[in-house]
């Protein structure tokens, strides 16, 4: 059987948390399947980050073509690596790069692909079985995977990274330039002069359940009364109702406040990724089956447009 290969992502030449989780899983699955764990990473100055990974081999793809992520360059380079290593399984994070590369690579190589995995294990009959989160987190799919190069994208934070170390064999290759996708510039969201939601102890977080931008005032008033800040889910930002610096989740900020008040937020996996480690989560959503209640400590099924003013009133009453 071919190796279990983790495709790693770096941030400022450091492994991302999601990539460390992939390495941990590649190693444990390889042990169970009786094969080797390997990794492939991109960049010229990543030696320190990968030298002690607990895998048999790391392929380092370097050169001027890989300074910034560009789908076609990465894909072509990976396709060659896959052809050479013939992996049993390829693991990527369900990040932008993973979503971009995973599907395209699967289509190019004709290999099966599974997205949104939250668990991977070898069952009693030695079959590789994955669990994936679909339908906005409302259902899980149990899927049997062939070990002939299946490409899997994994939701970050699905299991802890073990942090064990090893002495992998290193192989350096240089990526070729591929025209088609050019990185004009890389930018950082200006960290929001208006708020820094990662510092607030209490977040009053609103989702699409807020329904109308005019209702945001209710959230602002509540935040003020409670001594917290307003944050939100992605659709509220996409609608232009709050600026991007307020967004919690996969493509927004990761927050760990003392209290996260989730109001009219369904709890899609991409949102949970940014707030599930908050110390205390209270969710209010008219749908009692919303996935947010699986991570919340306390919940209620009221209409948030009624609840917010009721809560504000009580808190204001106390202050006097």
């Amino acid at each position, binding site marked *: 059987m071919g190796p279990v290969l983790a495709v790693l992502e770096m941030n400022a030449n450091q492994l991302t948390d999601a990539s460390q989780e992939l390495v941990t899983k590649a190693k444990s699955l390889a042990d169970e399947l009786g094969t080797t764990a390997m990794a492939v990473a991109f960049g010229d100055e990543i030696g320190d980050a990968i030298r002690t990974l607990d895998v048999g081999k790391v392929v380092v793809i370097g050169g001027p073509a890989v300074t910034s992520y560009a*789908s076609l360059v990465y894909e072509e380079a990976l396709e060659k690596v896959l052809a050479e290593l013939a992996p049993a399984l390829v693991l990527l994070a369900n990040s932008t790069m993973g979503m*971009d590369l995973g599907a395209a690579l699967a289509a190019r190589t004709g290999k099966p692909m599974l997205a949104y995995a939250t668990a991977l294990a070898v069952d009693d009959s030695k079959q590789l079985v994955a669990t994936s989160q679909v339908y906005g987190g409302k259902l899980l799919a149990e899927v049997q995977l062939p070990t002939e190069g299946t490409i899997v994208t994994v939701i970050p934070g699905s299991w802890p990274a073990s942090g064990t170390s090893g002495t992998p064999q290193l192989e350096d290759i240089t990526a070729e330039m591929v025209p088609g996708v050019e990185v004009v510039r890389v930018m950082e969201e200006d960290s929001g002069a208006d708020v820094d939601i990662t510092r607030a102890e209490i977040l009053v977080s609103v989702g699409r359940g807020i329904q109308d931008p005019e209702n945001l005032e209710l959230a602002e008033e509540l935040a003020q009364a409670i001594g917290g800040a307003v944050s939100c889910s*992605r659709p509220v930002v996409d609608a232009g109702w709050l600026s991007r610096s307020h967004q919690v989740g996969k493509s927004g900020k990761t927050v760990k406040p003392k209290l996260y008040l989730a109001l009219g937020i369904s709890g899609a996996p991409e949102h949970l990724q940014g707030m599930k480690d908050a110390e205390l989560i209270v969710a209010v959503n008219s749908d009692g089956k919303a996935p947010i209640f699986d991570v919340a400590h306390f919940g209620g099924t009221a209409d948030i447009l009624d609840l917010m003013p009721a809560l504000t009133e009580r808190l204001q009453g106390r202050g006097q």
Partner: protein
Amino acid sequence: MKIAVLIKDVPDLVEELELTEEGRLAVDDMSFVPSEWDDQALEEALILKEGDAGSTVTAVAIDTGDVDNMLFTALAKGADRGVKLVGDFNREMSNRARAEVLAHYCHTEGFDLILTGVQAIDDLDGQIAGLVAGRLGAAHASVVRDVALGSTSVTCIQEYSGGKMAELRLTVPAVLGIQAAQKTPRYVTVSKVRQMQKSASLEEIEGESSEAPALEIRRLYPPVASSHAEMWGDDVEELADRIVNLLEEKKLLRS
């Protein structure tokens, strides 16, 4: 530019997701709605067309059942053509199988720019943008917004986590997985869609399918959460009292 938007409908999450005894979705009993990210992709395409007189927008859906309304809605919103790829297709069609049909059609039509949603809630076996791009060998980027047309290229912003992003320039033909349109998707009234149904027609084109890798799904099941919130009911006054008590207990009240 000749722009295609690939759209599909998905189960409405507002409703209960019923499962069959075999652990499959009971698709016959469910209502379907356009995938929200495909709706964003359609909006972005219409905005691009409005800013460039020479551009056309073709909305494309595979006929897995009841897609006419979705395509007429796209026409009512401003798409130039509504294309229904017909054949022996059903609601259980995997994304890999869909990608084969879509890639084949897009290749034949020679679109410059293909937009679709960044993901759909049911794309267990990969997202359409990457799958179609991989089959076409086209330039592609997913998780993007703010698309702008050049003469033989397009630019867009690709988002990464934690507020990082990149401006990309892609040579056409290109495939983009749209995260969000520049504006909230427009709304058209039911009567306008009905009107469109009377005055316009959809193009039915035979979809060409080829073998695609399939996954063996053992079952679908609702997550048995390792924990669940302690539920405080639906009474607003009681809920507000409970939350205030909790704040007090956790010493989170400002004195």
